[in-house]
């Protein structure tokens, strides 16, 4: 376990040494503050559009950070040939996968905390209201969802040729699930066979990442999602994360490490 944590520590250090997070955070902050400063009809109590814009930027930034950070982990180790001394420690290939996953997931978690803290400060200063429980629930669900995404990217980075293709494909898949996941059954029912069967099958077997998007609950102050549902969703995400990690380990075990 200590080896996994050591590997994770390296990944976290890498995140705060690289500029991706800082650039995205500054961009999010500037756009949110800019939107917040606009005055509509001389009414300074209007706040929901600021929440909406800020949360959208946080979701996009967090997705980009997690995907880009994860996609280059194993290819970079192979390219720089640091994978060989790493595996000679000795560290098993399963531990490499677990360590890389944990590092990326924790690093994304740190980034999320910074983003959401900024969000709470900006919106709270406008509406003088801090629903911390709702924020915590939203952050937790977001983080759990990113766990699935990170595991998916690790799997992709084993099979795809370059980090750029892994990142692009994952962002398209995740974006597609987030946008269409809820409606896929309705779309399927409008299609002729065999497309109807294929889409329905995909609807049932794909990871439903759209469940983890609680932005509407935060923006519209709709209270909390039942804790039981959050726990079940967490178990569902853990199952998908495990599936992707196992598949990644299975692929990595057989992979030739020479480039």
């Amino acid at each position: 376990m200590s080896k996994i944590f050591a590997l994770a520590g390296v990944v976290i250090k890498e995140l705060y040494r690289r500029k991706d997070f800082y650039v995205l955070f500054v961009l999010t902050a500037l756009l949110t503050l800019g939107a917040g400063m606009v005055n509509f009809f001389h009414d300074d109590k209007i706040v929901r559009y600021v929440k909406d814009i800020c949360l959208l930027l946080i979701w996009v930034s967090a997705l980009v950070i997690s995907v880009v950070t994860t996609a280059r982990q194993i290819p970079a180790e192979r390219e720089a040939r640091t994978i060989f001394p790493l595996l000679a420690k000795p560290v098993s290939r399963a531990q490499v996968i677990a360590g890389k996953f944990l590092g990326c997931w924790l690093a994304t978690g740190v980034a999320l905390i910074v983003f959401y803290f900024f969000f709470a400060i900006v919106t709270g200063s406008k509406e003088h209201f801090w629903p911390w429980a709702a924020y915590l629930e939203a952050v937790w669900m977001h983080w759990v969802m990113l766990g699935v995404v990170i595991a998916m990217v690790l799997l992709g980075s084993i099979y795809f040729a370059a980090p750029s293709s892994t990142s692009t494909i994952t962002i398209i898949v995740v974006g597609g699930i987030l946008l269409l996941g809820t409606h896929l059954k309705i779309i399927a029912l409008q299609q002729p066979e065999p497309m109807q069967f294929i889409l329905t099958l995909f609807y049932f077997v794909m990871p439903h990442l759209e469940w983890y998007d609680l932005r509407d609950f935060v923006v519209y102050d709709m209270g909390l999602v039942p804790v039981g549902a959050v726990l079940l969703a967490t178990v569902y995400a853990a199952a998908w994360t495990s599936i992707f990690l196992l598949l990644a380990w299975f692929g990595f075990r057989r992979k030739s490490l020479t480039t």
Partner: protein
Amino acid sequence: MLAVLFAIAFTLSAKLALPADNWSGRAKSDNVFGMMFGDGRKLFANHFFTMADVYFHSGYYPSVFDQRATEEKEIISASHGHKDSEEDEKNEDFLGKPKDWVDAFGRNFRITQHTHLENHNEREILPWLRLAADLDPQKTEIYTVGAFFLREHLNRADQAEAFLREGLRNNPDSYEILFELGRVYHDAYHDLDRARNVWQLGVKKYMTAPADQQKEDKLIFEELAVNLARLEDEAGNYGAAIDWFHAAQKVSPVPDALQKQINDIQKKMAALIPVTPGKLY
């Protein structure tokens, strides 16, 4: 070489600057969105207007994939004084029963209650209306809806009037905007004379509109005529009030209800006619 290239670039830019202005209508646009997006901005305007309706429902809103019985945005019907009946509520339940376990579980993470903004929270739709108006200044319902919520729910008659005046500058022949402006003068400022003038101007604009547009907008004419009738009734000009009600009857889907109001005014008029004194001696 560099100097020659720079000279060519400068000469060409000076020569082509004027004709380039005529290649596209964008440069002539009077706002920054028009310049950036051209006519494509109207698509964004529609989206932002829909966003205002989404906010009015606190996120409970059908997507393009969902079926919904009514197509009209509720912020528009609310601005015409429409209140949801039980039947309307049923029609707006676009989710229906869960289709499967994925849908059923997923509803824990979606807003599934049909609510409308209230208690001054209606202000939250205003940014989207402002953006929509900037993107498509010719879409008159943006101004009327915005002004309705500013006046009726937020007690900001001054802002409502300013927004409508801006709309009127962009759409000088809009009787919808004139009707809403009359409501600001009548309901918020209680200024009967200005309300009368504005509504009468609205009727005049309606009468000069093309016949097919008149047919399409006959309910707006009815609203103008009925409000003018009530205003005249309020001012004690019963004859004029009856005339306006008669005009409204011609286009109204419920002429009998208007007849009842005419009868009430006639009763008031009868009560006012002085009794002729008989011979005292």
